[in-house]
C-alpha cells in the first residue's frame, strides 16, 4: 500500500516532458504458490522445493528503461544471504530472471537475450506479433486510468502444448509503449501485467530529463525457434539422462 502511495505521489509531481523513463515492477506469485499442482509420481519434497522457489520470486524486481523509441528490460536477482542458493537459482530460471529484452519501436522488433544450454543467444520477433486484443475495460491504478489488453501464447514442451494468457493494464497517460519482461506495443505504459500466474505491478516510475545512455546489449548469437529445438535435442543427448 505504501509503495502504491509513493508511486501515486511521484506520478503527480512528475508530469513534465521527459527524455526517458525508468520503471521498476514488483513481482507477485501468490496465485502460483496457492495452487501449486500435485503431479502423479512427483515426490512432495520436489513440489515443496518448487513452492519455495516460486515464493522467492516475490523478492525480485524487474526493471525497464526506455526512450520513446527504444526500451530495455532486466531483472534484479541478487541472492539474499538467508536463502538456499539452489532454490534461488531455480527461482531465477522460473522467472527468466537472467533474460534481457531490447525493444525498438521504429524497427518493430523485440529481442530476447538469454542462455540456452550454455550458449548466449537471442531471438528476434516483431512487436506487432504480440497481437494484443484491446478492451474498453478499465480500472484506476494509483492516479491513472488503465485499460485492459490481453493476448495468448503457447509453450510447447515434452508434455504437449500449454496455452498461457497475458492480461495487461496500460495507461495512455504515460506515452511509452513498453512494459515488464519485454512486453510492449500498447498505446501507453503497462502499469500491471499478469503473465499466466505471475503478476508484475509498477512500484516506481522516474521521468528523466537527460538523454539516456542505453545499456550495452549482450554479445549473443541470433537463433530461431527451430534452431532452439535442435539445440535442445543435442543438449539432451549429451547429458545422457
Amino acid at each position: 500500500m505504501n509503495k502504491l502511495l509513493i508511486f501515486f505521489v511521484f506520478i503527480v509531481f512528475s508530469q513534465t516532458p521527459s527524455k526517458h523513463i525508468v520503471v521498476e515492477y514488483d513481482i507477485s506469485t501468490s496465485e502460483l504458490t496457492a495452487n501449486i499442482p500435485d503431479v502423479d509420481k512427483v515426490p512432495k519434497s520436489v513440489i515443496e522445493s518448487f513452492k519455495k522457489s516460486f515464493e522467492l520470486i516475490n523478492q525480485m524486481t524487474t526493471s525497464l528503461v526506455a526512450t520513446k523509441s527504444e526500451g530495455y528490460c532486466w531483472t534484479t536477482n541478487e541472492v539474499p544471504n538467508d536463502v538456499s542458493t539452489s532454490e534461488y537459482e531455480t527461482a531465477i530460471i522460473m522467472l527468466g530472471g537472467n533474460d534481457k529484452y531490447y525493444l525498438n519501436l521504429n524497427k518493430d522488433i523485440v529481442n530476447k537475450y538469454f542462455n540456452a544450454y550454455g550458449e548466449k543467444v537471442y531471438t528476434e520477433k516483431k512487436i506487432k506479433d504480440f497481437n494484443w486484443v484491446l478492451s474498453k475495460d478499465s480500472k484506476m491504478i494509483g492516479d491513472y486510468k488503465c485499460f485492459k489488453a490481453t493476448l495468448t501464447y503457447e509453450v510447447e514442451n515434452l508434455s504437449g502444448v500449454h496455452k498461457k494468457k497475458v492480461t495487461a493494464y496500460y495507461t495512455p497517460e504515460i506515452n511509452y509503449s513498453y512494459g515488464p519482461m519485454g512486453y510492449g506495443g500498447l498505446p501507453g505504459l503497462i502499469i500491471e501485467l499478469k503473465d499466466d500466474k505471475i503478476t508484475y505491478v509498477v512500484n516506481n516510475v522516474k521521468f528523466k530529463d537527460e538523454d539516456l545512455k542505453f545499456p550495452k546489449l549482450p554479445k549473443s548469437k541470433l537463433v530461431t525457434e527451430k534452431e532452439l529445438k535442435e539445440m535442445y535435442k543435442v543438449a539432451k543427448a549429451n547429458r545422457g539422462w
Partner: protein
Amino acid sequence: MAMVLFMVSLMSVSNSNELIESDPVHNYDGCYGYAWITEFYAVQLGFDSIRAHEMGDTAFQDCVDRVDREAAQYWNNN
C-alpha cells in the same frame, strides 16, 4: 629395498582408508533420478524446454553438492 618401501606404503594406505560394512555409500546415483523428476515436474507445469532443462541441471548440481558435503562430513567425523 624399493619393494619393501612399496609394501610399507600399501600397508599404511590400507590401514587409514579401510572401508567397513557400516560405512554409508556416498555416490551420485540418486542425483540422476532427482534431476529427472525435477525436470519432469517443470515440464508438467508448462515451463518451456530450455527452462525445464536448466532446472534439471540445477537440481543435479545441487544433489551432487549435497552428496559431497555429506561425504566430507562423514569422513571428517570417522
